[in-house]
């Protein structure tokens, strides 16, 4: 064997020099790619960064991957207007220039929207962005908006939600994960807004909440529902921080 691995974790978790520039990029995931899995997305973004010829930094790990961190995985089938990755650069190139080259090197369906440098010692994106807003569009729903809200109230009153994901049963604590829900009707389509928080238990998937609410009302699960993530934020002592800041001073400074 070659030299032993100094660190057993994933390459992107390796300690990095805090002076490496950290470029945060916001991008969308179009409906067409809603079924692209997270791992495939990660590989795709790495290739986009390589194609954009940014001065990316390579991890020390065996696999020699580009140092990128991603915000939490979208549920399969969901699109988004607000996904994020942080890429470590060896050189602090102009952020607008970087955005331009990234856009030119990325498929339209994952088009980068904004790029700015953020403090190097902020916590990793995935854990840090703990609040999400979602939009659900449900054509052909068996119940109206008010009934749906009632269904969600009932589910929430139960305090907990269990569902099957593949073989495994998932348990979601609604008190901590479900922040808000509202629904309205628009030309025969029920549109719902869901606010979720990353809790100690499994995270709350909007479609799971919808199905639970419908089942509480005794109607069959909805089909043709479109789910879209519309915002990701960081919650800090009751205050919401945007992904690009301004960042609070009380932020801890662990390695990321």
């Amino acid at each position, binding site marked *: 064997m070659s030299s032993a691995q100094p660190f057993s974790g994933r390459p992107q978790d390796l300690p990095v020099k805090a002076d490496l520039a950290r470029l945060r990029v916001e991008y969308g995931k179009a409906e067409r790619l809603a079924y692209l899995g997270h791992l495939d997305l990660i*590989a795709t973004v790495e290739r986009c960064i390589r194609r954009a010829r940014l001065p990316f930094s390579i991890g020390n790990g065996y696999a020699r991957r580009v140092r990128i961190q991603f915000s939490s995985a979208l549920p399969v089938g969901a699109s988004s207007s607000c996904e994020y990755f942080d890429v470590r650069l060896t050189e602090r190139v102009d952020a607008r220039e970087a955005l331009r080259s990234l856009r030119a090197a990325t498929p339209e369906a994952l088009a980068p929207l904004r790029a700015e440098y953020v403090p190097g010692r902020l916590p990793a994106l995935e854990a840090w962005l703990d609040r999400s807003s979602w939009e659900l569009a449900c054509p052909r729903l068996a119940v109206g908006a008010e009934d749906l809200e009632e269904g969600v109230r009932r589910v929430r009153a139960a305090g907990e939600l269990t569902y099957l994901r593949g073989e495994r049963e998932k348990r979601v604590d609604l008190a901590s994960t479900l922040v808000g829900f509202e629904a309205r009707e628009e030309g025969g389509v029920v549109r719902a807004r869901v606010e979720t928080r990353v809790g100690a238990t499994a995270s709350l998937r909007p479609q799971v909440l919808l199905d639970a609410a419908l089942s509480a009302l005794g109607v069959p699960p909805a089909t043709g529902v479109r789910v879209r993530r519309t915002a990701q934020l960081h919650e800090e002592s009751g205050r919401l921080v945007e992904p690009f800041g301004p960042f609070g001073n009380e932020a801890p400074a662990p390695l990321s």
Partner: protein
Amino acid sequence: MAARKLTAGRILEVLSSGSRALAGRDERVLVRVHVDATCPRGLARCVRDALVPERGTGDVEVLPLAAPPVGADAPDVALVLVGDGPCAELVGSYARAGVPVAMVVEGALDAPRLELPEQAAALVGTVAASSPEALLDKLAEWLAASCDKDLALAANFAFCRRAVSDALVARCALENAAVGAISLIPGSDLPVMCVNQAKLALELAAAHGLEVRPERALDLVGVVGAGLVWRALARRLVSLVPGVGALLKAGVAYGGTLATGAAVRLHVSADAAPAPAAGPGGQRAPAARLPAPGEAPPPPPAARAPGVPPAPPYCLLYTSDAARAPRGRGVRHHRGRRVMRARRECLFDRLEPLLARVEHPGRYLDHEWGSVSEQDGPFHLCMVYADVYEVGQPNLGVAILYNQVNAQEGMSCERCYLPWKDMAALMREEGVPLLSLESASPLASFDAVGFTLAHELIATNVLEALDLAGIALTSAERDEDDPIILAGGPSAWNCEPIADVFDAVLLGDGEESIVDACACIRDARAEGLSRADVLRRLARVPGTYVPSLYEVRVDETSTRWGYAAPLPGEDVPAVVLKRCVNDFAATPAVAQRIVPYVGIVQDRLSLEVLRGCARGCRFCQAGMTYRPVRERPAEQVVSGGVEGLLASGHNEISLTSLSTTDHSQCARILNEMNAALEGKGIRVSIPSQRLDAFGVEMAAAVAGGKRGGLTFAPEAGSQRLRDVINKNVTEEDLERAARNAFEGGWRRMKLYFMIGLPTETDEDVVGIARMAERVLEIGREVVGRGVRSGVSVSISVAVLVPKAYTPFQWCGQLAPDEVRRRQRLLLSEIRDRAIRVSYHDADVSLVEGALSRMGRAGFPLVRRAWELGCTFDAWTSEFDVSRWERAAADCGLDLADVACEDFPLTARLPWDHTSPGVDAGFLQREWRRAVEGVTTPDCTRATCAGCGVCPTLGVRNVIQGVRS
């Protein structure tokens, strides 16, 4: 097979339906005709002439208008030829008595108005016709719909037969539609449908007044074979009709039966009429015929005297004839057939709702980086790799042709992969046809469709793709406007078993010939040529083989599979030679421009550094068919590779070819590549190592810090046998390579071997074990003996599949039992736990072997296997030898018998007419040298070995430096 799935109850049902049909035919039928003296003369004469009963069971009474009222002697049906006289009362009296009655008039306005109760009114019809010709059709239609004794009517009056047949078919189709609608599993409704179709066939025969023997009903069950064909056609039809799943499925069953009915009707009519002349298929071995339960399977083709055309049990079973006959014989077009090309339109919104319900939905997304999204045509080609996206997307051949065609003005090329089974089932259920990736247009809407024959086992997937697309499976069954179906690729060298599928096969390098073929099709279409003439024109494009212009002859100069010769009167080459791009450096270094979203089997950039290999291993088909050797210059490889990586963003580049380390500039390429990519986190890989010190040196050059496993291919376990196969590697080469590798830091060694090589003895098999032990021993000497040294050897043992255009093409494969015995022998000789042995599945090799050796008459086997559900045969998880065995039995074949048959050295072979340019004499010489254990040197290192490729094709080896 469907017939075997019939239960006893079902068989009874067919038998009793047979006697019902018999009884129906023999019933007495009385037709009464009232003639008004003032009625139009022409009509009266026409009715009189038509109503002459052919059998004793029909009676016709002709009465004047004023006749006694209807009494106990009521007829089965009454006709009134209306004139100026009052007839309302007469008509009314029949209707009230429950007798269907028609008023025959010149124009609908001539019919009197009747005041009748609703039930009685339903029995009254008006048959209006201005001419006698029109009259009979309409009258027959009315009779078929109104009279209970339709079978007897048809048996007696010829003019009724078509209308009664139509009604029977439509009725049976509706029944089948009901069956189709309740069945959820695709294919599971077949047995039921097949019974209904058998009943239909009986009734049709009865309607034609033919002798109906219930025993024959089961024979007729064979129509299900044709039924499947029509189902495929009908699926295409219904896929164009918007609607929901079950309805569509019912539609498929309905359409399929309509078409089957049309075919049966045709056949029955042919029985009644003079026998049709034997079609061009007469010389061919018969298509698969389904034996009835209890009946002995038909004799294998070998049992027949060569050259004697087999008597077709049913012309139906010659699907090509059945499809040709309606047009040739002036019979009205089948209703189940689509004559127009499918519309080019984006159907992604039909596919999208299915994505949530399948595994790996990412397979079905397009718009990848680098794909050509503008597909304006106007000429549209779709390249199909008939396996899932992850397997097909890395294929370099498709990438090359994709770029070539898209670069042409006015031509565009899209891609298509075979959906996995879950998606295919959903698409069938929802009536979504197979779509291209780029524009999500139906495959059936393209001008041309090109299949990559990457290996023999892809055959059933090709059929599956065509069926999903709603395109007829064989060239003969296709309609004028259907896409031209092309094929090409490494396993085109014996394409005969699936030659019936393709309109044309492109042999050899495709980058130029695909453009030529597309241009030819485009121009011929623009000139308004018929499909047959388009194919004739295609046959003039060099390197293009058009199977339908050749016939297969079996005689004493050939094997049982015969040989292909131009059809009389067709101006096509007796031997089609492959195309060869000699100036390889003029082709773009990097062909892969598409960067997939999803992880694929080879997630890296491939760059073809050289084409062809002249080492001359005698089992290797690619080594013969890709000659001559053409190297890409080092500068082009390095600059192309760096540019390609920047453009794609991949973190690995693979320098591919049949033997990359043979490139005369290999060391330079690797060094320069490594230098150019330093610090970018990019790996360079080469697919296979040469079995010598240089090979190890090159492996070290690309491995960086990584020392995974190292793979060598000694192929045979003894020097004697390695000389037989012309693997010019000595014991010392191997030992030195192994020592270098262990010293270089590698711990795991993988060795590839083959068993079943000609002249192989048990000693050679045992030699494999000894060789593995020797390598292990070297590893332990170098690294150390403890378990912790981590030294291990794994050996992978394949079965030789003799391929066309190799010196072993005359050899049969080793019999499966003997394969298993030698595998056991080898296993028993391996005693060290650090040696792992893995075998290729002997059954997979057997099917591969059969597909490699069969001629055109092997197609029914492929088709039957597909019908029985064989798809994705190259996937170990999906391969099911029992289905292949059943398919072979249904076709009167035996897989081992086919795969293991030796051919005489002098026999004309099934693939002789499609040639890579290698001389038959050279191959024979190589075979003799093999048996004598004499090796032949590599012509890129020594002098020309005289294989014939260079003079025949006017090409030469292109070597950039000097090969070591």
